């Protein structure tokens, strides 16, 4: 089944708020509103005709105001955001595949940066455990219902989430000086300051 047929199936059999994305790049995807992600993924896994038995990849990135997307025209997803980060959001992707039916699909969603919370899918696929820990570590997404949400790549006492845009690495960590040397600074383009 291709992505469009899978989209029609979701539309027909669930009440989820979804939209079909094909303008972006070579692979079309299905956009699901963040509170519907777990029910939609559970449907995709449990339905016999779809049978998505493997979560290949889960990742996300920090989207800033400059690269605002067209689905804001359809859904007002920023209204749940609190405080100042009104249009900054984290976009999440789930790439799932079926070994038996040999089809794949990309599910995507977005959550506001001010309140980065989403349901965990560890109950569906065990491989989600470490993948979600990685996204939590590097992007700061809180997974509700994750059994063991702690940092995986960085030390436990690290502050901040490096893959967010505008992240600045600490100058000092446990007495190790990490500030740029005079030589490094001399290579920085003039007139461009952080």
């Amino acid at each position, binding site marked *: 089944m291709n992505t469009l047929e899978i989209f029609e199936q979701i539309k027909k059999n669930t009440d989820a708020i979804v939209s079909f994305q094909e*303008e*972006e*790049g*070579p*692979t079309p*995807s299905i956009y699901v509103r963040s509170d519907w992600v777990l029910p939609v993924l559970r449907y995709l896994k449990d339905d016999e005709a779809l049978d998505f*038995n*493997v*979560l*290949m*990849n889960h*990742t*996300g*990135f920090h989207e800033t105001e*400059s*690269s605002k997307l067209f689905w804001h025209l359809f859904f007002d997803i920023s209204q749940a955001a609190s405080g100042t980060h009104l249009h900054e959001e984290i976009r999440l*992707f789930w*790439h799932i595949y079926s*070994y038996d039916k*040999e089809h794949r699909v*990309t599910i995507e969603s977005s959550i506001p940066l001010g309140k980065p919370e989403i349901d965990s899918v560890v109950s569906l*696929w*065990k*491989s989600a*455990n*470490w993948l979600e820990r990685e996204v939590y570590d*590097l992007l700061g997404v809180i997974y509700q219902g994750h059994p063991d949400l702690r*940092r*995986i*790549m*960085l*030390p436990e006492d690290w502050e901040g989430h*490096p*893959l967010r845009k505008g992240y600045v690495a600490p100058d000092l960590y446990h007495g190790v000086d990490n500030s740029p040397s005079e030589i490094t600074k001399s290579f920085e383009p003039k007139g461009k300051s952080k």
Partner: protein
Amino acid sequence: MTSALKTEYLTINMGPQHPSTHGVIRFILKTDGEIIYECDPDVGYLHRGIEKIAESVTWQGFVPYTDRVDYVCAMNANLAYCMAVEKLMGIETEIPKRAEYIRVIVCELNRISSHAIAIGAADLDMGAFTPFVHFLREREHINDLLEIACGARLTYNYICIGGVNNDLSPTFLSKTAEFLDHFEVVVEQINRLISYNQIFIKRFANVAVVPAKMAIDYNLVGPNLRGSGVKFDIRKDKPYSVYPELDFDVPIGSGREGTLGDCYDRYMVRVEEIRESIKIIRQCLKQIPDGESKAIVKSTIKPPKGHVYFRTETPRGDTGYFIYSDGNTSPVRLKIRTGSFTGMSIIPEIARGVFIADLVAIIGSLDIVAPELDR
């Protein structure tokens, strides 16, 4: 003596500097005597932030970094990244035929050397030193061949966006054919030395059985998945490059010395994949056409806005590159999903109830490479 002996769990530390972990990985083990009760892998000691670096370098400038993601099979890592970018740019059909064949030849050579290290290191961990040295000697020949092709012995930076950096010489092709004739015999010799050795089989068979359902649930890929009896190879099932034109088999585990999905099955899948790779390279040497080795690609690449998730089969299995581009000179986000990462995540489950010494066998049979795991 009526009261029972007092027993308690003992928490011990293994690693990060441990000879059997092939890099820096740490395990926190809770043991009941000599049996592992709980195993908690602590990874991240080799996290270099390669995904963050990708956000500040150009598209071509990231290729040398992919070498460092997995230095045991750098050529395959180059290919995985370059094909993902080509797919994003929509030029995957413009790559010259000769370039595709060259890519397959060098990648399969690199697969042989990677599997040789995996097999040799697994033997080494089990106490058999000799096969490891034999395999290192054979790997030198492959390093020499790839040095003829691109000048580097380990981190190649050979495959580029649009093709390969320079054409192969006739010397390379004839020397590769010679090497294959020589190596095919050596594989069988080393098999007689170790793979069919009863002591080795007793050590590996029936250890850490991974049923097919569990392997899929944890998203094991490549030889680890096929060791559990799932016949899935991206080169065969979702073919890319010129693999549809080549004839080869996909070896799977059969439980020949014990249970389906044990350490020995995963090990033997790698041995048989070496033979299949030899078969693939022989066909490529026969079929390789003349022509260009690189498509014309602009020096400043700006792929259109969008995202792609492209999978290729590297020695450690299905390696996926997720790239999001906003139409600029560097990616917004690049994520590398590697086989070692998911291979590592299954260890807490399969290591429960085995001997501490068997944990070493598990790491060896899953072929975990620490830099690929941590990126």
